Structure formats: C-alpha cells, structure tokens
C-alpha cells in the first residue's frame, strides 16, 4: 500500500520533501551557520580565480560577457512570455498552445544554460559585493526554484496530455507563476546592478 503510493506519487512526494528540507534548513538555523563560511569562497572568486581576475582586469571582457548574459535573459524571457501569454490566451491564439510549449522549450533550456554560465562570470567579478546583498541570494533561490519548476514540473505536466483536457484554471496558475518567477529573477538581477 505504502509502496504503491510512493511509486504513484513520487513527483509530488519529492516536491514536499524539498519543501520540508527548506523548512528544516530555516528552523534549524543551517542557513545562518553556513553563510559566514561562504565569504572566503566569494573573496577567492573575485581575487584569485581566473574568472574574477579577468572580470576585474579587463573591463571590455566583463562588459561583453554581461551583454551576452542580458541577451540570454532576454531570449529566456521571450520564450517564457510567448509560452505563458499563449497559455493565458492573450497572444498567438492561432497557434496551438501545445506547439508553443514544446517549440520554445529547447530555446529556453539553451538560454538558461548561457545565462547561468555568463552569470557565474559576472558574479565572480563582483564576488565580495554580491555576497553581502540579500537580493543576490533571493535571485539565486528564485533562479534555482524556477529552473526546477520549469524543467521538472511545468513542462512534464503540460506535455503529458492535450491542454483541452486540463482545467483552464490550472493552466492559468502555472502560467502566472512562471511569469512572476522569471520577472523576479530579472528584476532582482537589475536590482543587483543598481545596488
């Protein structure tokens, strides 16, 4: 009986296991205990790693990589908006939503990969600055949760059946959550830049 439930609802149980883990990390003070130990790593990233040295020595390289980072975020945001606004029935009404959901996902994954790789370089150049910024950690948390949400929750669900068989309110909930998630990633990213 228990084994049947575990295998039948493995994905749901994983979600609640992650939620429980987050609650435990907060309740037991793990985050506060780990945080001070990360400072040497961020200082090393900026001052000693080749990423940080290149980023702080050659302004043109940093600016070029940051431009690629912004472009990849723009592509990522474009795929998210195209998909989610179609799911909400706002744009591209003549294209089946299933087509857009599957068609944009490959582009989304590549844009996410490029954004993460260039983002590591950008963060390394200002490692000892972002370490102290709460908004940087908010962005990392939302980026991690948003990526997992898109890759392991939303996309598998939306490609598992025709959208006509899904409750429209579920589709709206998924689309609004996705848009707010990536809006938060973009907004906190710009917040880092202006802090």
């Amino acid at each position, binding site marked *: 009986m228990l084994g049947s439930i575990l295998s039948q*609802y493995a994905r749901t149980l994983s979600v*609640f296991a992650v939620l429980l883990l987050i609650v435990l990390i907060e309740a037991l003070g793990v985050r506060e205990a780990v945080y001070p130990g990360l400072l040497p790593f961020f200082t090393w990233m900026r001052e000693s790693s080749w990423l940080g040295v290149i980023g702080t020595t050659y302004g043109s390289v940093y600016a070029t990589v940051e431009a690629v980072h912004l472009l990849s975020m723009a592509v990522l945001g474009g795929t998210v908006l195209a998909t989610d606004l179609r799911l909400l029935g706002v744009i591209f009404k003549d294209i089946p939503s299933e087509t857009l959901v599957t068609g944009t996902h490959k582009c989304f994954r590549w844009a996410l990969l490029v954004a993460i790789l260039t983002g590591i370089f950008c963060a390394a150049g200002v490692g000892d600055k972002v370490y102290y910024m709460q908004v940087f950690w908010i962005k990392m948390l939302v980026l991690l949760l948003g990526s997992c*949400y898109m890759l392991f*929750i939303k996309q598998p*669900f939306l490609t598992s059946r025709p959208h006509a068989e899904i409750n429209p309110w*579920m589709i709206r909930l*998924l689309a*609004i959550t996705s848009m*707010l*998630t990536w809006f938060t990633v973009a907004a906190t990213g710009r917040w880092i830049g202006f802090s």
Partner: protein
Amino acid sequence: MGDNNKWDDKTVAAVSTAAIMLGGLLYYWVGEGQSTVELLELAYGSVKFFNNPLVF
C-alpha cells in the same frame, strides 16, 4: 486530469508547486512594496498615492 478525471502525480505536483511558489513570490513583493512605502514615509513624512499627489 488523467484517467477517470483523477488528480495524478504530475497534476498534484504541478498545482501544489505553482501555488506554493506563487504565494511565496507574492509575499516577497508585497513585503518589498510595504518596506518601500515605509522608506518613502521616513523620507517625505507621509505618502498618499491616491488622495493628494501634491503631498507626495
């Protein structure tokens, strides 16, 4: 919603995750909005967005 209109694994995971994340994000942005208004009140004395823009 799967066979026999049941909430299958992917459906429950998708809806619960989306609801939790949406709640968390709204909580964060409402909190940021509140703290922004508090900062503006500290800076300008009072903030009235709708009644009298000139006070702001």
